[in-house]
């Protein structure tokens, strides 16, 4: 199974220098605002663009990042807009079935040059598998999960092998519902069908809608990586616990690596627990950014548990070190 193991960043957006290593099955990025969490997420997709990525699962290409920041100028990609240095982002992937295997993939934008990149020609990992891993690396942000385009895009594929059944089961588990199935009407309205009545998905609460659409997206992914920004949005802590359990279980069965950025301690706790239940490995990465240098402190679940019981909030490690 292929996993992104580390990402190093030079002179990209707010990060002059930084490296995150030890990424595993389920990864939580925490840290203050402006610690570079979103830049890490974008960096991963930039690296993927050098190994097969063209569009994410929602059909968005890398221009998404420009529009998301409402910045047409590419100068903002360089740290402090200093184009005298190259932007260099390197991702390392490993193949768990092949001990010692490692493939570095570098995205580079030379100063004053249009974006480009290179793949370091040292293929210790099967190239096709590597390209499969990178080809649909996706990011889901909180507002994405309100888009009805998700069910419109994926419904035929979901039905073709009845993955809608698993979706119904997960929804019932997360929200304690008793839905029998989903159905997409000709007017593209997704209905949740109960025993003797049906309701449009969009008549449900925000938590239910975002959970269903996130699960639809994950159901369509396999052997790749999904990044979720603030999945706790709209979720009650109890629902979040079950939602994270459903996500981790599905990610495990679909062999999808998860990277989650969050400001919520409930989210950290829920995903740590969910990963353990799903028998996946997990880690928390606390990010700080000082004068452009990003520092990532990695904590395994045992350390997170011990620190929490000692009274330390793992989102605020910068208060202690």
């Amino acid at each position: 199974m292929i996993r992104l193991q580390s990402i190093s960043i030079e002179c990209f957006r707010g990060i002059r220098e930084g490296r995150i290593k030890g990424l595993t099955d389920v990864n939580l990025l925490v840290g203050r605002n402006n610690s570079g969490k979103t830049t890490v997420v974008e960096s991963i997709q930039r690296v993927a663009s050098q190994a097969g990525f063209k569009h994410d699962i929602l059909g968005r290409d890398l221009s998404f990042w420009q529009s998301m920041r409402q910045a047409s100028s590419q100068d903002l990609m360089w740290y402090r807009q200093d184009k005298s240095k190259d932007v260099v982002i390197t991702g390392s992937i490993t193949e768990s079935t092949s001990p010692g295997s490692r493939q570095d993939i570098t995205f580079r934008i030379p100063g004053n040059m249009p974006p480009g990149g290179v793949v370091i020609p040292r293929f210790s990992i099967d190239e096709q598998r590597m390209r499969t891993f990178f080809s649909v690396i996706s990011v889901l942000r909180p507002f994405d999960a309100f888009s009805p385009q998700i069910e419109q895009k994926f419904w035929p594929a979901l039905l073709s092998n009845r993955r809608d059944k698993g979706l119904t089961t997960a929804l019932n588990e997360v929200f304690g519902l008793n839905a029998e199935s989903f159905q997409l009407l000709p007017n593209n309205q997704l209905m949740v069908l109960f025993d003797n009545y049906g309701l449009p998905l969009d008549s449900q609460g925000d938590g239910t809608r975002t959970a269903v659409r996130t699960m639809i997206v994950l159901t369509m992914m396999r052997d790749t990586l999904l990044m979720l920004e603030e999945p706790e949005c709209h979720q009650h802590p109890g629902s979040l616990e079950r939602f994270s359990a459903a996500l981790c279980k599905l990610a495990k069965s679909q062999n999808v690596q998860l990277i989650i950025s969050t400001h919520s301690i409930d989210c950290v706790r829920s995903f740590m627990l969910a990963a353990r239940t799903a028998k996946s490995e997990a880690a928390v990465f606390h990010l700080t950014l000082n004068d452009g240098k990003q520092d990532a402190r990695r904590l395994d679940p045992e350390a997170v548990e011990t620190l929490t019981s000692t009274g330390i909030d793992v989102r605020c490690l910068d208060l202690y070190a």
Partner: protein
Amino acid sequence: MPETKKTLVFYEGDDDKVFLQKLRDAGIWPAEWDLAARTKEQFSGKDGLIRQLLPVVNPENGVGGHAVVLIDHDEMSIDERAEWFKKNLSDEISRTASVVQVVDGPTEGRVKSYRIVSGDRAGKVALVVVGHPADEELKNTYKIDRFAIDDWVFRLALNQSVYEAVSDLERVPYAIAKTKYLEVAELFRKNGLEVRKSKTYIQILRALAAIGPSTATIVGRLVKKGAEALGETQFRQLLQPFIDDLDAAARVLAIGINN
């Protein structure tokens, strides 16, 4: 203005926690020191303390932060206890992250410190071995030879002004209490029961005065009333050299603060 980094203070037992909380309330230690929440069911004893401390100071798979550790002398000297601490911390680290090393840091008086180093990151621990083996009265009169943080609590109880400031002790006059400590301890010994620790005398006091609440409660009251009755200068004097050790711990942790 940059935020002051917090230091976590680790201790052994519930009574120690109350003693330290009341010292903090009396303004005895730096504002940036926080008491660790000790989960004794999961991390019991001195070994448990080290396991709970590890992710706080470990720069790999941890915070790489600063901690003050208060561990009782028991029957050990400061050097023996420091050696024990360093060995156990190193053993625990080697079990989890072999690239991390425990190296000696600055020492001041009775306080030793250690750096837990990995590459350019380091956590720091100041070790304060607590107890009062230099107190001749505790050793000779009360036959104490296992020294612990309770020595300071008992030292407060032996001070007449402090004793008489605690309303729970009103029914047993100070002079009688002093006599009864020795009588009860002698009776214990005649019956083959050990009396080697200050904690036993605190428990005798609790029984004499028929104090319902826990030992921790009487510990808290002795410290709180002691600070009020004696005033800061006298209170600090009574708790020397413990207070000096806390000040020294703050200083050794501040050396090379960015390292």
